[in-house]
Structure formats: C-alpha cells, structure tokens
C-alpha cells in the first residue's frame, strides 16, 4: 500500500502550480468575470502547450497517455487557481465520454483536437431544474435527429462539440436514453449564453432543432455510459474542489496573521483559530476521500462508483465550508468585490451543483453502499 502521489506526480503538480500562478493570477479570472471574453483563450492555449489537456488521453489519440493520477494533480491546481477555461467540460466530461464509448473515428477526430487545445467539448445533460435522471430527459432523438433544449450546459456557448443525452423511447427504462455526438456548428443548433453565480465559467442554453447527430456508443447503453462519465468526473472535479478549499483556507490563514484587532492578530483569537482548524479538517477529509477516488479511477477498481460519490460529497462540503468561512475571517473586506474571497465562494457553489446536487450524490453513495452490502 502507498497512499500518496509519486514524486513524479508531485513534480507535475509543482509544475502546474508554477505555470498557473504565472498565467492565471486572480486578474485573469476577473477579466473573464468582467465579461472581457467568455474564457481565457491564451491560458487554454498555454495549457495545451504544457501538455495538460492531454495527460489522460492515450498517445494514439494525440495525448501523452500519462494517466488519470496525473490528471488529478493538474485538476487540483486548476481548482486552486480558479482557472477560467472549459477544462472540466472538455477534459473530464467530453474526453472521458469519448474514451469510454467513442468509435475509433470519433476518437481520431476529437481527442487530438482536445489535446492540442483546438476543440472545446461539453456534456449536454440537464434540462432545467433537477438532478441527473433518465426521467428528466425530454430531448428526443428519432432516426438520428435531435429536437429539444438543454440547460444549463457548462461551457455550452464556447464548445465546438457536445455529447448529448437524448430520449429514444418512452418505456421507462434506462435503455430509453442514448448518447449522441453533435458538432455544435451544425445547422439547427442555437446556443445562448446564460448569466450565472460564477461567470468565470460559461453557462448556456442550447436548443436543437432537427439536428442530425451521430450516436456515441451503443444506443441502449447511454445512461450507463453517462453514469460512468459522471463518476469519473466526480473524482476529477473533487480535486478541483480540494485545490479550491486549500487556497481558501490559506487565504483565511494569511489574513488572520495579518489583520490586527484589539491590539492582537485576529488569528490569536480562539474563535478564529478554531474556525480555521475546522476548515483544515474538512479540507483534509476531502483530500483523503479524493485520494481514494483517484486510486479507484486510475485502476478502474470495482470500488469506483462508491469512491467517486464519497469524493464528490466530501469535496463539495469542504469547498463550500472553506470558501464561506474565508469570507467570515476577512470580515467586511471579505465582502468587497475587490477581495478575491467571493471568487472562491462563487466557484464553490457553482461547482457544487455542476454534476448534480449534493443530495443526489448522497443518495447515490448510500444506494451503492447498500448494494455492495447486499451482494
């Protein structure tokens, strides 16, 4: 047993941190939030040049084929830096779906483009309020033609292609749902940017009107592929949340050392110290759950579904906890636009629902544990 990243992986993490510290300072995040561009194109290109977009893509498809543990350490740094790029939609969702279920031609077409930073991909799953569920999918596919609306679609207004979940029948079974790959420049696709609590990542509504689409994977297995993709993404996004938690904790700690009140550093007051200690505790528990998820993801272990749900819940709770208390430690300053605290608060709450809500994942976790115990 060895429950840590290897020295090479840690080195990659340091490299990613150095790169992002330089290329993705809070100023860059703010530029996207202020609406100067829908995402940071230059950063995106830089990430491609560093090889970060293709670490988990096999060499045969233009990546470096390093692996998922490598992707985890990069994800942590992406979260820490609040990178305003379509990384999670493209790399965790679209690329993973292609790797799991794409045909060789689909992989040849899109994976190298992703690795090189030429293509942005996303997953079009949600249709308004609610959680991932076959029942919630109304968008139809008949004879390979899609009709319906998806909302919100993360990075939907900047994506070049989308994996779309569509209904092919109404028998009430999971097999009613199939996945399609859609080139978003196709005729009949209309994407509209939406405003969100975290403008550092784009959200959109996409309407499909008689759009011709190619199937992704076996038609009857759409839902099963989708839930595998969500599990994999849960671990990877979990690392972004861990990175964000750590940074929020660090900001709070630094401010507590700096700010003086009643003639003392506020970090010498127990109420403040204990708040920060509790932030450390939740960030640490989340990190450990994510490490377990990383192991399960990288080895494709049977434990992956359970490990992924645990990582997701723990990381969601930690990032929300750390980002809100970081504002509290900063007092009034924490509530100014000028301080970066709100950037983390926004991201933590946006990312908390991005793959389905906390209660959805709680339900998944217990269901999976129950099934394992029954087996």
């Amino acid at each position: 047993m060895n429950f840590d990243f290897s020295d090479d992986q840690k080195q990659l993490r340091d490299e990613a941190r150095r790169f992002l510290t330089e290329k993705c300072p809070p100023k860059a995040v703010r530029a996207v939030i202020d609406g100067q561009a829908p995402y940071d194109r230059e950063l995106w290109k830089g990430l491609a040049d560093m090889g970060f977009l293709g670490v988990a893509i096999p060499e045969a498809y233009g990546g470096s084929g390093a692996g998922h543990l490598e992707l985890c350490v990069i994800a942590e740094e992406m979260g820490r830096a609040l990178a305003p790029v379509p990384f999670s939609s493209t790399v965790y969702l679209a690329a993973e779906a292609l790797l799991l279920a794409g045909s060789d031609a689909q992989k040849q077409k899109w994976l190298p483009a992703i690795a090189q930073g030429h293509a942005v991909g996303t997953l079009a799953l949600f249709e308004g309020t609610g959680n991932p569920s076959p029942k919630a999918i109304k968008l139809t596919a008949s004879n390979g033609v899609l009709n319906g609306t998806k909302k919100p679609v993360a990075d939907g207004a900047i994506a070049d292609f989308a994996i779309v979940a569509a209904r092919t029948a109404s028998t009430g079974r999971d097999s009613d749902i199939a996945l399609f790959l859609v080139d978003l420049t196709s005729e009949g696709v209309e994407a509209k940017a939406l405003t969100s609590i975290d403008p550092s990542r784009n959200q959109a509504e996409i309407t499909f009107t008689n759009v011709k689409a190619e199937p992704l994977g076996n038609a009857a297995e759409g839902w099963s592929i989708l839930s595998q993709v969500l599990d994999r993404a849960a671990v990877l996004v979990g690392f972004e949340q861990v990175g964000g938690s750590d940074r929020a904790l660090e900001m709070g700690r630094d401010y507590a050392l700096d700010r003086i009140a009643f003639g003392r550093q506020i970090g010498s007051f127990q109420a403040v110290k204990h708040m920060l200690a509790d932030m450390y505790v939740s960030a640490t528990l989340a990190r450990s759950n994510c490490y377990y998820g990383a192991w399960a993801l990288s080895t494709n272990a049977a434990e992956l579904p359970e490990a992924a749900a645990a990582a997701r819940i723990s990381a969601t709770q930690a990032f929300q906890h750390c980002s809100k208390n970081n504002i509290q430690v900063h007092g009034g300053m924490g509530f100014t636009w000028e301080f970066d605290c709100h950037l983390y608060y926004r991201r933590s709450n946006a990312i908390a629902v991005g793959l389905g809500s906390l209660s959805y994942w709680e339900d998944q976790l217990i269901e999976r544990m129950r099934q394992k115990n029954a087996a």
Partner: protein
Amino acid sequence: MNFDDTPQEAEFRAKAREWIAANAPHEYADELKKASLGRVQLKHANILEVAKVWQKKKADAGWAVPHWPKDYGGRGASPIERVIWQQEEGVFGKLGALFIIGQGMCGPTMMAYASEEHKRHYLPPLASGEKVWCQLFSEPAGGSDVAGLRTRAEKDGDDWVINGQKIWTSGAHYSDYGILITRTDPTVPKHKGLTMFFLDMKSPGVEIKPIKQANGQSEFNEVYFTDVRIPDHQRLGAVGDGWNVSLTTLMNERMAIGAGVATGFPELFDFVSNLTLEDGPAIDNPAVRSRLATYAVRASGLRYTSFRSISALSRGERPGPENSIGKLVAGAMTQEVATYALDLQGAAGVLNSPEDAEVAGKFQAMLLRSPATRVEGGTDEILRNIIAERVLGLPGDIRVDKDVPFNKIPTRGR
C-alpha cells in the same frame, strides 16, 4: 498511489490471517462484534482475563505490538504491516483496549528515555499483557493545562519522594506500573520545573480510589501519593526536562487514540439497513440517506487520512500534529451518531438494557460514553488549538503565566 498489498505485504497478511484463524478466541467473536464504545463486556467470562490470555498468546507467537523491536517484545513490523495486522485482527482488537495506554503511550516514552537495561526488563511484559501500565498526568489543577500540575517530587539520597494527587487515571486500579510527571522545582516557570518517572503502582504510599463515571462505569481513578519513594534510576529524561518527555507521550497518545478511534458509522449503517420506519425501510428514506452519507464520508475521510499518515510514516516522516484530526472528528461523530440512532428509535430510544433496547443497547452505551472521548487525551478545544498553531502556524494563545515562576502563579483551590 496503490491500495493493494505488495507481494511482501500480501505474504504478511496471509501469515497473520492464518495464525488468527487458528488461535483467536472465536467463541467471543459475536459478542465482541456487538460490543460498543463504553460497553465491552462478556456475559460469561471476565474480559480482563480473556484479553490477557489473547495478548499472551500473541506475544508467544510474535504478534504482540508487531511494530516494536524484537528485543522489546515486538517483531519489527513496518507501519503498514501494523495496519494489516489490525485489519486482520478485526473484532479481537477490541480486547486490546486494556493495553492501549501502556503500549501506545507509556511504551514509546520508555523506549525514548529509559536505560537499555530497563527497556529489556519492562517492555516485553508490557507487550505481552502480563503487566499493565497507566499514565499519571492529569491532576485536579492540571488537565488541559498539564504543566500546571502540583504533585511534588523531592530528592532524598538516591530516591525521590513523591507527594500529591493525580486524577482521571484510567486503569490505575489494575495497573502494575505507571509513568508519572511531577514538579521538582516550583521556583521556575511551570514548563521548566517538571520531571518524569516511572513507578511500581504497588509502591507503599500509593492509594487508588475508583471514580464512578457519568456513564455508570468505573474506568478511571484518583491516585494519591504519600511519601512514595522512587529510585533515581527510574527517572525518564533529565531533571527539569519532564515537559519534553511528556510531549513524546502526548504525541504518541494522539497517534494511538487517533488512529484507532471508532466513528460509530459501520454500526449505524448496519442498524439503519435493518430498520423499518412507518413509511418503509429506513434506508430508502431520503432524509436518512442524507444523514448517513454525511457520516459515511467523514468516516472514510478519516480512514484514508490515517492511511496517508501511515504512508508518510513508512517513508520515514515523523508523526506530526496533523494526527490530532482523528480523535477530534471521531469523538464528535460518535456522539452525533449515537444521538441520531436513538432518534431513529423514537420513544424506545430511551431504553437501555441489552434485553430491551435495539441492538442490545449499543447506541445507548455509545451515547453515554461519547462525552468522554471528546475530553480524554486532549479536549476538542485543545486539539483545535494544536491544529491552528502547529499545523496552520497561527499565534499561540496569550499565556498570562508565561515566564512567571510556578509558585507565583495565582491558583484557585478545588
């Protein structure tokens, strides 16, 4: 990152498993499985005797305290092998509760500070459970503020003469030896005038009075010292260096307690899996699921945090203050879990006897014991201070008694 055993670890595991299958007291497995925090008892046998027999058997085959050096009663196992052993020992590990203080805290302190001769003499019987040890630190005037202790040690020829009182001493009533921290110089600031010893609990002048606890049991005691003589060669560390010696004990205490402390989650999951509420199986209820999930990730988070510490340990890193997390999280959690399990039982949650209460009153016992977990071995508040100061680097609390000679610090008698 690898969760699987290396070939060497797998071999160790197989050996451990085989030996346990052949030798463990399987007749008590069921009862031990049901036993909860605060109520490890056997119906038809004396648990102390069963525990001692099991420990001795382990010792004879080299499985007692596997991570200790061979010369002191262990087998020189690696930190990971130690975990593998614990995993394989399973419920029989609960029998080890009696030895935790001795093996987890007193032993490591002896290893760091006792003479080679003393180590070879005292440690093997501690490992084998033939001798039980206790930790004589807390006093009426010094609990969290350990360095505020007042038990005096005065030099008299080659001996030290001890007078004073300790309190909350777990297991003193069945202990053979103890490690004891005393004040040898009250004219210097409090951390500087302390000295550590070990002593025979049967020494003349040692008087032990069990205390009835809030949960009705009696694990801990008051211990009085009246002119108790301890030879100087039983001193641990230099005169006046007792605080540093005690830090070794306390650090190991956090490791020993933190790594093994129960969260109550597996028990709760089992209970809920078999419980039916008015509107169907409890486990199908969304509110119940949400609570369970929150506890599940806390329990798994702790488990993998301890695996991360072990990985660090096996790379040669020293156990650090971050290990305070274990007891801080698990202590509060058992209390919450127990409260919740009673809540699920409705009015019947009030019942306490093994015959009438759900799952033999496991959660009721847990509820009544859990406040102690949040106090013993450092309160939640002290653990948060440790994390804040030693891990996060925040300023220490303001210490009004700093640099003040101990005998000039204002006191309030109890």
